[in-house]
């Protein structure tokens, strides 16, 4: 493999020995890729501060001669300055990176996944839309790209359309399918997550929107929180692991509630 240069997003950094790091990057054409960054922890000159979490980079990657590929050069193409000093945004960005880390296979091209994460991180940094709504939007698009998008338009059991369904509705977390109130009982042992019709409609609406159009809608707080709770149960279930960042996100949300603040984290 000859050297190649690529845009990349820093997903994870693991210290290796005293000075090196093993980095996991998301790139459009090479997908998720692990690289060895020699002297990454002391050589400020070579990487000059570029190797921070979720930094958007321009990277030059070289052949590892049968071993891990080597990061030869990295320079920041977007430092996401506002995001890096705001712990709420940083926690959301960590959560997204963890989803991408566990939901993406190594080596397969990820042009859409890259565009999604890049778009979400820059929108979070520039406050193009409210972080909570952006979090919902990101997770919906991520679920679609990962092939486990929830099927919310009809009841899985009786086929009734969402609009015609009785008010109480739920989602079968395992299949991602909507189950109407008449079919709750006798549905079996699958875990059901109750979700209002309004929340389901908001999810369908957001799933069809991009960041530009979604930025204009205002979700009411109840709907927004219900959508968030559902996606943060649904997506980790399908990835098979609970991202660690969710604990911190939950902590700062509960602290907010205690203090009765109005602003909201995703």
């Amino acid at each position, binding site marked *: 493999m000859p050297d190649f240069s690529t845009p990349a997003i820093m997903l994870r950094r693991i210290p290796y020995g005293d000075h090196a790091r093993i980095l996991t990057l998301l790139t459009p054409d090479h997908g998720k890729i692990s690289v060895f960054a020699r002297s990454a922890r002391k050589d400020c*000159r070579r990487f*000059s501060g*570029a190797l921070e979490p979720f930094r958007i980079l321009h990277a030059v990657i070289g052949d590892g001669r049968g071993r891990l590929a080597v990061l030869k050069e990295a320079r*920041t193409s977007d430092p996401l300055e506002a995001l890096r*000093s705001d*712990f709420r945004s940083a926690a959301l960005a*960590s959560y997204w990176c963890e989803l991408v880390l566990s939901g993406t296979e190594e080596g397969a091209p990820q042009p859409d996944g890259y565009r999604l994460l890049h778009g979400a991180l820059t929108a979070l940094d520039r406050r193009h839309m409210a972080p909570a709504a952006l979090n919902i939007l990101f997770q919906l698009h991520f679920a679609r790209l990962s092939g486990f998008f929830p099927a919310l338009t009809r009841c899985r059991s009786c086929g009734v359309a969402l609009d015609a369904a009785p008010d109480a509705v739920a989602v079968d977390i395992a299949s991602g399918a909507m189950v109407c109130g008449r079919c709750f009982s006798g549905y079996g042992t699958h875990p059901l997550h109750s979700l209002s019709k309004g929340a389901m409609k908001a999810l369908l609406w957001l799933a069809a929107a991009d960041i530009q159009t979604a930025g204009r809608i205002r979700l009411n707080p109840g709907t927004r929180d219900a959508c968030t709770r559902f996606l943060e149960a649904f997506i980790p279930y399908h990835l098979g692991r609970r991202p660690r*960042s969710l604990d911190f996100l939950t902590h700062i949300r509960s602290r907010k509630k205690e203090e009765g603040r109005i602003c909201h984290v995703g």
Partner: protein
Amino acid sequence: MRCYPPSIRRLIQHLQTLPGIGEKTAERLAMHLVRVEKKDAEALAFSILNVKEKVRLCSRCFGLSDTDVCDICTSPTRDAGLLCVVENVSEMIAIERSGAFHGRYHILQGVLSPMDGVGPDDLRIHELLERVAEGGIREVILATNTHMEGESTAMYLSELLENRPVKVTRIASGVPLGGDLRYVDQLTLKRAMETRYALG
């Protein structure tokens, strides 16, 4: 290695577990220890054991100490109204070496890192708030590192301290002395430009 007797081989193996020590250096150190006088070797062995027995975390600042409360926390010549918050002992030592600070410290024992599962309960944040609540502190200086985790930890702490009767400050960042502007990253340069000062 084979050519050494088992006792020296064992010593080499143990020395090799130390950071930055490879096999060659371990061999050299071992041969040095073979040659030194017995009392010097005993003094070395004793000081290693002594460190393991005595050193603990100071119950106030969580720095290293031989006693329940460390020398810095008990010293009457240090300004008790100034509290400098750092990530780890190594940062505290760096600041002490600079001689630029004469207050007291609070060592968080890390930084917030959601992805690594490090949250507020894993750090000495609760104890920091308690120290501030006890009174007597005028200013809390947030001296966590300027990497992303350090910055967001500083912001998290500044919010927690918002309604307390203390001044909260953050250490300045900018171009390092003796540094070459060409190799300074864009964020540092930007901040250095924003916080420029008038000469004369």
